[in-house]
């Protein structure tokens, strides 16, 4: 069997399957020399011009760059740098439309040339054989060389292969009907091309170098043959013209009779293929240190006046090139990048030339119809099978087409869609004008997308599972931690140290508390004999009834508040509810229970009174009327107090007491007035008795005074029938009392200062004044002036200051008192509520179970204890309130 080389020498070449013979159009350009590069006004350099990732941009907008200067840097083999094609300024770095069938935008460096075309520093390397392989590869990589035949695969990756290379094939076939760029390059620059081939020979050390060139380029063949005549292992292989013999796999088949299996790189067969233009670029890069910044582009087509090959700087807009070649068609621009068979239409003429652009086609409408101007001519497939006959990859184009239309990705894969080189031969021969290649491209893109999605889905799945596991782990870890902490705590408590003991005792105490609470609640629940469920039900019922009654009372009170508060009807209504509530309760025989109930009623009444009082504040006249009435009484009380007062010290105290008494009296008077409608006898008796106690308790310390006030309050509230106004009045009276107290102090001071003869008289007068001031505001001015006259000897300023203080003090004290009272009332109300509950319970018990006396007694016992508790709570609350009041008075006195 003859060897490959022998066969080549004989001119016998094998044939790839199929192939077509489209009309030759190379004559348009093949005879004209390559025009030199012109510098356009603006260069658009896409950062990514090859297969792989874009390099990292290392220039900024506004930078001045020199020709050949790197604009981006690469740090991985699949990254390639781009370079400035001429000197100028970076005007922008932005997304711009790139040469891609999609017409999408990618990051581009926009450059404005300065026209000087100044080179950056270069190191000419005369003898590349002195360089190591690594250095040469580095030079190739730094020059940014990617396959210039159209695919744009990084060259240094391809030639850096470690496989043992038998054939280095230089692809000069150039099978596309219009393109003559490689032809012209060989004709004009064969020495440089040969240098490139030699460098590749040096790098790869192949047994044979085959230059594949179609027989329609006679001049180039001659040049090559002349140039390589003295090199034995370089064989110029003139192959018959047939499209697509320039395809990698097809050319390998033609030259070596080997078929590259699907999914296998030619290098694994010991074959590396490089384009002629790439060889030129390699030589330029290695020897002249010139990066890939320009290339030969065939600008052809019948729409051009002078189609020709031209050197074009990378980044030159295609419109600039076609303009230079005399593009006639201004109306319907139709430009194709690449050849007519494999190229794609451009969306505009500002798209730049990139490293893999070998042809710009500007066809006339008759030559190649614009895809926009005509509607689709596609008709149904007639199953003629011509496409299968011409397919160089031996695929079944029509079956692929059906599967592509049905989006059957599985079937497409089975039919080896990815072996399709998209040469377009099938579409060329299709009598139905089906754009077959487009269907395949869509199918390929979909499958690729699906693969990406599958990878992503798999990743997501893995991450999801990992997360689930992590959460599980964390949960377990947490549980473990808690367990450990608990154990550590236990161990610490059992260690026997004093700390442990205290901790233990604290825990024990807490446990005991919890137990006690539980027991209490159970007794609460089961205070009635445990046997009968009926009682509990009735108990609940009574509670519910109670709650309803309360709610009603509240509603009524609100109503009263909303409507005229003073109308007697509403008042009597609410009081009636009160009395009903109050009278409904005190049925049980136990004295403390009734007491409690009365208190509860009182609390409710108080709360209501407070509400009413708020409403009443708006209505002054009503409030004033009774006050003026009680004036006389107050005066009488005052005189009483005066008489009893002996020494100045006692005098002060007694006066306070007097003020309190006065206030009480006032309240009483009002109560009397109101209570007359209800049951006056009881009321007056009660309040009188209480006032008596109050007087008794009007002993020296101010704290006690407050207490007295509170007692008074209590007494007032205890009488449930007491009208609500009384509370308001009481408050006012109290304020008056405090005012009096404050004034008294001031007076006492003044008295000591001025040594007035009748301090008691004066002070009493003043208390009178202050009261009147409080009650009758319009007259207070006069009283003040009178006051001033009285204390004439004193400097007027001090008096004024005191007066100011006096007016301030009562306000504060009143506030504080109010607070204290509220606190007391709240706590009391709480206690009362408890007591009430118990009382109710006991009541219902006693009502329902008269016969069972034993149980009754038990219940009473329980309730009695509960009442005791409630009382204690009330007492505590009261004490607290007292303290607060004391504080208030202290602060007042300090002022």
């Amino acid at each position: 069997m003859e060897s490959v080389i022998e066969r080549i020498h004989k001119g016998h070449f094998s044939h790839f399957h199929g192939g077509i013979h489209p009309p030759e159009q190379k004559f348009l350009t093949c005879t004209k020399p390559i025009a030199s590069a012109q510098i356009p006004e603006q260069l658009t350099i896409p950062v990514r011009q090859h297969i792989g990732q874009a390099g990292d941009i290392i220039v900024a907008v506004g930078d001045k760059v020199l020709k050949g200067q790197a604009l981006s840097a690469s740090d991985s083999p699949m990254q390639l740098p781009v370079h400035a094609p001429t000197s100028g300024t970076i005007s922008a770095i932005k997304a711009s439309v790139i040469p891609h069938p999609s017409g999408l935008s990618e990051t581009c460096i926009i450059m404005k040339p300065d026209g000087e075309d100044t080179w950056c520093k270069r190191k000419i390397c005369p003898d590349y054989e002195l360089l190591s392989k690594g250095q040469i590869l580095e030079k190739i990589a730094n020059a940014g060389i990617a396959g210039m035949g159209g695919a744009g695969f990084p060259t240094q990756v391809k030639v850096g292969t470690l496989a043992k290379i038998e054939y280095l094939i230089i692809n000069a076939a150039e099978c596309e009907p219009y393109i003559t760029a490689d032809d012209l390059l060989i004709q004009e620059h064969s020495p440089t091309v040969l240098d490139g081939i030699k460098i590749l020979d040096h790098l790869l050390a192949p047994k044979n170098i085959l230059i594949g060139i179609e027989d329609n380029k006679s001049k180039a063949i001659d040049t090559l043959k002349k140039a390589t005549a003295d090199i034995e292992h370089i064989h110029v292989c003139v192959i018959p013209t047939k499209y697509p013999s320039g395809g990698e796999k097809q050319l390998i088949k033609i030259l070596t009779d080997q078929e590259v299996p699907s999914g296998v790189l030619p290098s694994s067969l010991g074959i590396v293929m490089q384009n002629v233009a790439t060889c030129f670029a390699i030589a330029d890069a290695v020897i002249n240190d010139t990066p890939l910044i320009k290339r030969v582009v065939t600008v052809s087509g019948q729409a051009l006046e002078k189609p020709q090959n031209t050197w074009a700087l990378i980044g030159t807009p295609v419109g600039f090139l076609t303009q230079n070649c005399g593009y006639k068609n201004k109306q319907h621009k139709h430009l194709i990048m690449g050849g007519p068979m494999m190229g794609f239409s451009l969306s505009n003429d500002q798209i730049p030339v990139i490293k893999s652009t070998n042809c710009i086609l500007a066809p006339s409408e008759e030559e190649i119809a614009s895809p926009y101007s005509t509607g689709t001519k596609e008709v149904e497939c007639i199953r003629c099978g011509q496409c299968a006959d011409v397919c160089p990859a031996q695929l079944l184009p029509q079956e692929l087409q059906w599967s592509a239309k049905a989006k059957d990705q599985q079937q497409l894969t089975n039919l080896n869609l990815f072996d399709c080189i998209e040469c377009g031969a099938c579409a060329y021969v299709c009598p139905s004008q089906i754009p077959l290649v487009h269907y395949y491209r869509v199918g390929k893109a979909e499958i690729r997308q699906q693969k990406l999605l599958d990878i992503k889905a798999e990743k997501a799945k893995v991450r999801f599972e990992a997360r689930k596991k992590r959460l599980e782990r964390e949960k377990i870890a947490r549980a473990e931690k808690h367990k450990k902490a608990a154990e550590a705590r236990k161990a610490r408590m059992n260690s026997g140290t004093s700390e442990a003991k205290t901790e233990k005792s604290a825990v024990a105490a807490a446990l005991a508390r919890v137990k006690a609470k539980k027991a209490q609640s159970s007794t609460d629940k089961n205070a009635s004999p445990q046997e009968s469920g009926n009682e509990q039900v009735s108990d609940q019922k009574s509670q519910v009834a109670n709650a309803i009654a309360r709610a009603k009372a509240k509603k009524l009170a609100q109503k009263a508040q909303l409507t005229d508060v003073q109308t007697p009807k509403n008042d009597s209504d609410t009081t009636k509810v009160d009395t009903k509530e109050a009278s409904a309760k005190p049925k049980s025989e136990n004295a403390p229970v009734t007491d409690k109930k009365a208190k509860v009623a009182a609390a409710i009444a108080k709360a209501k009174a407070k509400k009413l009082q708020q409403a009443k504040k708006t209505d002054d006249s009503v409030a004033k009327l009774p006050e003026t009435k009680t004036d006389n009484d107050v005066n009488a009380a005052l005189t009483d107090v005066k008489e009893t007062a002996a020494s100045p010290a006692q005098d002060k105290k007694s006066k306070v007491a007097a003020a309190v008494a006065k206030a009480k009296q006032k309240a009483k008077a009002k109560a009397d007035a109101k209570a007359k409608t209800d049951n006056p006898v009881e009321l007056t008796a009660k309040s009188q008795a209480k006032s008596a106690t109050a007087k008794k308790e009007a002993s020296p310390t101010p704290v006690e005074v407050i207490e007295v006030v509170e007692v008074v309050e209590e007494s007032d509230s205890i009488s449930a029938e007491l009208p609500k106004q009384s509370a308001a009045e009481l408050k006012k009276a109290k304020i008056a009392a405090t005012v009096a107290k404050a004034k008294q102090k001031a007076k006492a001071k003044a008295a000591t200062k001025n040594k007035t003869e009748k301090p008691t008289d004066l002070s009493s007068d003043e208390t009178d004044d202050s009261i009147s001031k409080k009650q009758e505001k319009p007259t207070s001015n006069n009283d003040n002036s009178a006051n001033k006259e009285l204390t004439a000897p004193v400097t007027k300023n001090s008096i004024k200051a005191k007066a100011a203080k006096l007016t301030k003090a009562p306000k504060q004290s009143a506030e504080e008192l109010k607070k204290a009272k509220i606190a007391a009332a709240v706590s009391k109300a709480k206690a009362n509520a408890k007591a009430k509950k118990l009382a109710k319970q006991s009541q219902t018990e006693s009502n329902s179970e008269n016969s069972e006396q034993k149980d009754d007694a038990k219940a009473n016992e329980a309730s009695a204890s509960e009442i005791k508790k409630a009382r204690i709570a009330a007492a505590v609350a009261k004490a607290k309130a007292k303290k607060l009041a004391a504080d208030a008075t202290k602060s007042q006195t300090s002022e």
Partner: protein
Amino acid sequence: MSTVIAILVLGVLAALFGALLGYASVRFKVEGDPLAEQLDALLPQTQCGQCGYPGCKPYAEAVANGEAINKCAPGGEDTIKKIADLMGVEVQPLDENHETDNTPKVAFIIEEDCIGCTKCIQACPVDAILGTTKQMHTIIADECTGCDLCVAPCPVDCIEMIPVATTTQNWQWDLDSIPVVQVD
């Protein structure tokens, strides 16, 4: 006599094959549910939970046990078709409750607005959000499945779902597209 031989022969054969099958069922026992696994492989793995199950695998298991096949919104018609093919059932339109557009999206955190609450991190089914307490969070776009689950918990609404931009890498040839022509 011949009938006896026939019975004997057939009996021996039956016993032989029975033993063989018995052995095979033990020897080649398949762990797990192969159908659920296959279904899981068809699902888009967004883990979005729109089907009502906490992830794609639980839904796959549910479908294997008779759940409706039309509840995967991100998968859309294609996934339903695939499941239908696998299960040998009729293709159903997507459940009306789940009608959403299934354009691929990626979550994006407006980082100026992020308060660092970590709520989105807890919500993310695929751990695609980076960040910690009181630190700005960000989304690892490559890992994001576009499931939408992080959007709702964000107290400051700083998460947006951005459709995945078309690049030359994921661009699909479109036969019916009107070519963009610059008018000048």
